[in-house]
């Protein structure tokens, strides 16, 4: 498969990559710019980072974001993993129906998900009289809703890859059904569960649209706070925040990739032995 790529395709790739990264690079550079208006470079400073870390609004929103992301991802992982186990044993027809249902939150536009959940919460409060105010709880419920499918679609393939007799083998060797589950099935689908959980966390951290409709005025998440700041237009602190997020993500990706590469290499070495 390996081929020399032509100069033309190299240039093309470089241009697209430049398009994708230029705005981010500009933000990073401007986050160290003294000048408050964005266009001109007037000198290096860490001021915006300092201001960011003393911004109560942003810090509070950060805490909320972490709470919502973790609680909703854990819940989605539990519900989604159980669901995948159930779906795996369903017959073909039922499987197909449930998969269709699971596609809905992924395929439908976020704004539809957002307003429909908002309608639900409003309906429950006004028509059913349940005192469910828009806030952290409704945020968490909404995030669980859009996170579950990611867990299911990460766990299901692992179940499919599993030897269909592995569970039987565990029973055969003396495990009761519970032992068979946590000694054999769980370790095998764990990579899928972890991937699903991480995906849920990232989607939850990043979600703006659905949170926008379901958060209510009191509980802000980071993306909501960013939106509020951006509307006021003057916010070099946002450049600093963007830079931090970008660097954190970059480091996380590098670490996870390096470790998986090392694991791969170790595996290959073992085979050679």
């Amino acid at each position: 498969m390996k081929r020399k790529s032509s100069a033309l395709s190299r240039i093309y790739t470089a241009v697209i990559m430049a398009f994708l990264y230029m705005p981010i690079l500009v933000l990073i550079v401007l986050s160290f710019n003294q000048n408050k208006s964005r266009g001109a470079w007037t000198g290096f400073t860490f001021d915006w980072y300092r201001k960011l870390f003393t911004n109560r609004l942003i810090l509070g929103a950060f805490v909320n974001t972490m709470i919502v992301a973790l609680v909703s991802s854990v819940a989605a992982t539990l519900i989604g993993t159980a669901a995948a186990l159930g779906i795996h044993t369903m017959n073909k027809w039922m499987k197909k129906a449930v998969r269709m249902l699971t596609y809905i939150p992924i395929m439908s536009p976020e704004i539809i998900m957002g307003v429909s959940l908002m309608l639900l919460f409003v309906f429950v409060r006004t028509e059913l009289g349940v005192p469910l105010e828009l806030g952290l709880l409704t945020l968490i419920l909404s995030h669980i809703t859009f996170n579950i499918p990611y867990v299911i679609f990460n766990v299901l393939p692992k179940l499919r890859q599993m030897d269909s007799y592995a569970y039987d083998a565990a029973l055969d060797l003396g495990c009761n059904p519970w032992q068979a589950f946590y000694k054999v099935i769980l370790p095998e689908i764990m990579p899928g569960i972890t991937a699903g959980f991480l995906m849920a966390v990232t989607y939850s951290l990043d979600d703006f649209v659905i949170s926008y409709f379901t958060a209510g005025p009191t509980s802000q998440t980071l993306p909501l706070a960013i939106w509020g700041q951006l509307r006021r237009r003057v916010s070099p602190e946002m450049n600093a925040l963007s830079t931090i997020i970008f660097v954190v993500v970059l480091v996380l990706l590098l670490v996870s990739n390096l470790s998986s590469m090392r694991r791969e290499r170790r595996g290959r070495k073992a085979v050679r032995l």
Partner: protein
Amino acid sequence: MKLHTRLASVPYLLWVVVFTIIPLLLIIVFAFTGTDGGFTIENISAVGRYTDVIMKSIWLAAIATGVSLFLGYPLAYIISRHSARQQNVSLMLIMLPMWMSFLLRTFAWMTLLEKTGVINRLLGLAGLGPFELINTSGAVVLGMVYNYLPFMILPLHSVMVKIDASVIEAAQDLGASPLRVFFKVVLPLSMPGISSGITMVFVPAVSTFIISRMLGGGSNLMIGDLIDMQFLGNAYNPHLGSAISLVLMVIILLCMSIMNQFDDDVDVEGVLR
């Protein structure tokens, strides 16, 4: 035993009913009822007033989808012909910007496009401009392409990588010119990727309100803005908002069913991973 595990999906199924199906049904109910709770088609007919906004949304999203396909297709092909290792690196580079907040990425373009922004400053150094870059339809399309281009490249790549190099070589061997190879082999084989790429760009593009708000100014309203105004804006009228949402859902279902003609199984799972 089998029955036992199938029960594990019950919590999820209940969750889907309460937090996905009922909310979507509520949109329909709200769309066909007035503030007094009685049945009415007033809301639906009121949507007619916004025909120009709806048409403009579809138009802008369609242009953005076309540009994404035009830009993304060659890149996906170039990447798919590289070694597995290079492919991983390239795909990661394409996905990395997506890990940064959507809002901040769009904000970056504000910084670039503003009247006193980076681009105009640079042009100014060459004695040009300043140009009216931001608050135009072009800026909105640019924002869409920038944000959703990866959604086009990834499904295209996942299909192209499955095209065996020997198939292409066989076509060349049989005397096909490079152009013929492309139109007779590569293009037909990548149809499923094209259709799911189109869906994955068009759906979020047509329903966005962030991009139009941040880069389009007041003069480039889209369907998403209308919905936002009815639910959280000054115009507060969830019944009309639901009616507009319903129209948006119909547009999207139409788009998806047209795309499904080309590919009966949109491979969302493949794209997720």
